[in-house]
């Protein structure tokens, strides 16, 4: 899942990265927001269940809804070995 600061929340890390990019000469960058990427290996009956579990984990622990939003992406679903 990708966790990013809510639009109305200041992001000093993003602002500092932005300042660094400007110093490097990347004048065309108008905004930088920094978040987190969390990868999980989940055993589940299918992609929907894996996504539901990941959403539940994000709601309860991985993201703080007061300051953050998250998106869950399921990829590389594979059959459990027999």
């Amino acid at each position, binding site marked *: 899942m990708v966790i990013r600061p809510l639009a*109305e*929340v*200041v992001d*000093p*890390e993003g602002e*500092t990265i932005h300042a660094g990019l400007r110093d490097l000469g990347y004048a065309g960058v108008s905004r930088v927001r920094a978040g987190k990427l969390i990868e999980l290996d989940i055993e589940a009956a299918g992609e929907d269940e894996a996504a539901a579990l990941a959403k539940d984990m994000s709601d309860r*622990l*991985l993201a*703080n809804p*007061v*300051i953050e939003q998250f998106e869950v992406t399921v990829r590389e679903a594979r059959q459990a070995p027999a």
Partner: protein
Amino acid sequence: MKACVIVFPGSNCDMDTFHALKTVAGFDTDLRWHRDTDLAGYDLIVIPGGFSYGDHLRAGAIARFAPALREVAAAAARGVRVLGICNGFQILLEAGLLPGAMLRNNTLQFRHEWVNLRVDSTSTPFTRECDPVRVLRMPIAHGEGSYFADAETISRLKHEGRVVFTYTDDNGRAVREANPNGSLSNIAAITNERGNVLGMMPHPERCSEPVLGGEDGAMIWRSLAA
């Protein structure tokens, strides 16, 4: 006054807080481990500063699921006084015992310095001995202390007198230069609706005796004992 300090892996202000409560304040004080599931019989529960669980994910995010926190929530609901200092404040926010959240300091620096604090409420059990016109001096030491809540919550906290300490200049004015971390409205400490749970970023245990360079922190212990 029977008090306890909850110790998490990564707490580092637990012994200072224990000393302040036991020796300076004279409270009957225990240290309790974060796995403890029985915190009955205490009048005051303190969650100390530090870096519980390494501050991973978000400061306080993992500690809120410690078994002791369930007991803290139950005790708070019974009206037991709960004080969260620094990381303790972050844990109380993550646990939902106080509203809002902490962001990384807007300076991106770990700020460790003495700050001025205006006492905005003397009607809490933690501040009733404070003189509202005297600006207090206490040390801070944190990297994630920028208090954030939505506009409605900030307005409600102010309206209900739940902002307890505000970062100010020497004259008690909440100017931008006196804000060490970017906290909205220079907020340094808040209480819950009932007033029995206080979260504060400054460290009263680090300024409770003259040898530490200040005694303003002892106002909190004196208020609790009153």
